[in-house]
Every structure is written in C-alpha cells, then in structure tokens.
C-alpha cells in the first residue's frame, strides 16, 4: 500500500517535472510575475528611512525577500485547469482511473516547485546584491519550522483553491470565486506589508482568517522573528481540516451533477 503510493508519487513527480521544463520560458515568466512583494519592498524600505515605522529597513528587506520566496513556493493555479477540464469534458477519462484526479494536480504543482527553484533563488541573489547589508541566514530550527510552515501553507492554499474549483460543476466561471478570494489574499496575507504595521483592530480580525498563515506566518519564521508559532500551526491545521471536509462533500455532490459536457 505504502510502497504503491510511493511509486505513484515518484512517477507522477517525474512526469510532471518533465512537462514543466518543456516550456521553460513560462517558468521564468511565472517567477517574474511574482515580483509584487519586491516592488513593495522598495516602497517600504524608502518609507522606513525616517524611523516612522516599527521596523528597520534591514528587517523590511529580509521580510519581503522571505515573502517573495514563500509566495514562489505556494503559487497555485489548479482552479483554471480544473475549470477547463470540467467545461470541456476532459475530466471524464480521469474519472475512470483508479486514482483521484486531485492527485494529478497536486503533483503537477509540487513538481513545478522544483523547476522554478533556480530562477527564484537567482532573483533573491540579485536583490541581495542591491541590499548587501540585509543578507541573513535563518537559524536551523527556524529553517525547519519555516519549511514546514511553507509546506502546510501550500497544502492549505491548494485545498482552498481546489474547493472553489469544484464550483465548476455548477457554474462555468468558477474562477471568479478565486479572483475574489485572491484579492483578500493579496491584501490580508502580509504580502503588501508585515502584519505588525497593520492597525491593531485590523490585525486582530485578520488573524482569525486563513490568510496571514499563508504568507506572513512562514515568512516571519524564516527571518528569525517567529510569532505565536503553536497558534499559527493550529490555525493552519484547523483551516485545512475545514476545507478538506467541504472539499470532499462538494466533490461527491459535484460528481452527481457532472454530465461530461462536450465529451
């Protein structure tokens, strides 16, 4: 059982890795399109020169570089692929296979992480040349915790998006849901500013949503400023469990609804 699962994951990873490096230019464009945190880094570093904010320019550079990396590892696009599969009826053949189609998407995302890694580090290196004083290394325990947090953040984000993707069984434009969710994600996850710079009232509310755990939480561990670690991991697990349940329920309901359009 375990042996078979390992074999399946190995095969899928190598297949999807090969797919991903087929169009390498697309990978470079993906990395480039994630430069939003780096743009904000410039703004915040400039703003922090006057000591008006709680964080120093060095800390801000580190924070945003960490955000950039976390974002690179947690990019998810399953909803667009799933939506197309349902609308065009290409989901049907996958349903006949003895493995849940979700795993295909999952492994294609994981394999892509490895393919994009070199470009992402290249860009971080470039910015360390621009701000050499900010170079830092996470402590090894923080590094381990940070990697775990990134892995969990990726799983949670994948689960959330895949759950929304299941709406494709009922509507042709499920991605609109994700677009709205993505807005909240952009502005509340800590991508535009560390949560410590948010007004207190806003921060209190935001901490109850899943968003800060997707970016702010892993990034702050990576820059050696862990913040409520146990609470953060608990929140991630709870949100994942919630979306997992919702996802399986929608999947079963959706299959009853699915009519294999266009096939």
């Amino acid at each position, binding site marked *: 059982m375990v042996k078979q699962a390992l074999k399946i994951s190995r095969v899928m990873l190598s297949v999807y890795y090969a797919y991903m490096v087929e169009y390498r230019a697309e990978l470079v464009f993906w990395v480039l399109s994630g430069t939003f945190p780096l743009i904000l880094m410039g703004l915040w570093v400039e703003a922090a020169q006057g000591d008006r904010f709680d964080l120093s320019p060095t800390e801000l550079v580190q924070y945003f570089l960490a955000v950039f990396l976390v974002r690179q590892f947690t990019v998810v696009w399953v909803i667009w692929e799933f939506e197309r599969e349902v609308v065009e009826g290409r989901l049907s053949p996958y349903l006949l296979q003895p493995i849940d189609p979700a795993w295909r998407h999952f492994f294609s995302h994981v394999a892509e992480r490895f393919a994009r890694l070199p470009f992402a580090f290249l860009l971080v290196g470039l910015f360390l040349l621009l701000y050499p004083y900010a170079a830092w290394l996470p402590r090894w325990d923080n590094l381990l915790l940070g990697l775990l947090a990134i892995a969990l953040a990726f799983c949670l984000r994948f689960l959330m998006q895949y759950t929304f993707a299941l709406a494709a069984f009922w509507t042709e434009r499920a991605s609109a849901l994700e677009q709205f969710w993505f807005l909240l994600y952009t502005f509340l996850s800590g991508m*535009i500013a560390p949560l410590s710079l948010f007004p207190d009232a806003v921060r209190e509310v935001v901490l109850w949503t899943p968003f800060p755990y997707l970016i702010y939480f892993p990034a702050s561990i990576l820059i050696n400023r862990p913040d409520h670690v146990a609470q953060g991991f608990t929140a991630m697990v709870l949100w994942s469990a919630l979306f997992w349940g919702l996802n399986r329920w929608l999947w079963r309901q959706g299959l009853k609804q699915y009519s294999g359009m266009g096939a």
Partner: protein
Amino acid sequence: MERYLKVLGLFWGTAIAAELEYRLNFLVTALISLGGLVGSLFGLFLFYRTGYEFEGWSWEAALLVLGLFTVLQGFAATVLIPNLNKIVSQVQQGTLDFVLLKPISSQFWLSTRVISPWGLPDVAFGLVMIGYGGTRLGLGWADYALALLPLLFGALTLYSLWFMLGATSIWFVKIYNVTEVLRGLLEAGRFPIAAYPVAYRVFFTFVVPVAFLTTVPAQIMLNQGGRGWLLASALLAAVLLLVANRFWRFALRFYTSASS
C-alpha cells in the same frame, strides 16, 4: 481605413454579444473591482496612517495616481488581456495561419479581435477616485483635460509593451502567464514614482516605463513637472509603437506553424 473601422465594429459587436451571455458575471466582476479598490486604498493608507508621506505627494495626490492606475488596469482588462490570451493559444495550436492569410494587418486583427466589458467597473471606480482626489485638491476641468493626452500616451505605451510581450510567444510558444508579468510590472504604477528608492526609480523610468503610465499624467494634472515630461511621454509612445510593429514583423519570420 474605412474597412478597418467596419471590421472593428464587427469584431467588437460579436465579442460583446458573446460576453453578454454571462450577465451575472458583470455583477461578480463589479464586486471584484470594488474589493480591489478597497484593498488598494487600504494599502495606501498603511503608508499614510503614521503621518509619513511619499516625497512631495499628499494623500489626495497619491489618490490621483491610484485612480489613474485603476483606469489603466480597467483598460488592460477590457482590451489588452483578452487578446493576448488569444495570441498565445493561436501560436500554440497553429491557428495563427488563418489570421496571417486574411487581407488585413495581422497586428490589427490580433490586437482588436475581442473586447471584454468586464474591465469597465475598474475604469468607473478609477474615475471616481480621480474625481474625489481632484475635487479635494481644487482641480478644474482644464486640469483633467490636460491629463488626457499623457494618459493616452501611457495607454499606447502599455499597448506596445504588451504586444511585444505577446509576440515573444512565437519563440516561447506557451506563455499564457505573460499577462501576469504585465500585471505584475504595472502594479508598481499604483504609487507615485517618487515613493521608490533611486535604483527602483531608474528601473521604472528607463527599463520598464511605468513612470509614464501613471505618475506623469498625475503630475501634469497637478501642473507639476512641465512640458518636458509630456514630450518624453509622447516620444516614448511613438517609438514603442513603431518598435512593436517592427518586432512583430521580425517575429513572424520565425513562425513555423504547428501540427501541419
């Protein structure tokens, strides 16, 4: 010329008819635009709430930049992005052949084939923001009118950059996400260029001319900066338009079609 106008009318008529099939989508995109607006304001507020100011830009002036950014974003979503997605799929599937065979400019066909009205809420919200900021700053109709020209140049610049990015799909084939790159770089235009460190300013003025898209029109609206910037903006738009056209012809020499 007349033929092109007629074709344009047909293109857009059919595209809008097709999009109106999804009327509920209009409500959804309007909601998304509204959410984006609130988010952008929140992002700007984070900087200004402690009394910090982007150098030489009051809160209202920064709102003008954000408003211009939102308008351009709407323009990109209406005209640019839907067409760009088409170029890539045509190159990948080899259907670009049919476009090249048509007796009109292929650049015209590819740039105007579809239009998606879903970017219009963004344009509307952007205008409201400009109106609010402008009223607080006591701007008159003449000031708004002055900004129209640089805004038009900005839109042309954006179009040329976008078209060149799309043309690279002749070599790279599958680059559906170039739209994301374009959007990512545009994001820098949310804020006045003066808010960035020097290295960023150089990059966003000379390498990726984001400064000309939002900051320059805002400055001209505020009667700052002078004629030099307007001239530079016009020159940039003209040069980029020409380069985009040449680049497309150059790229076509490498087009080998697919699956035939």
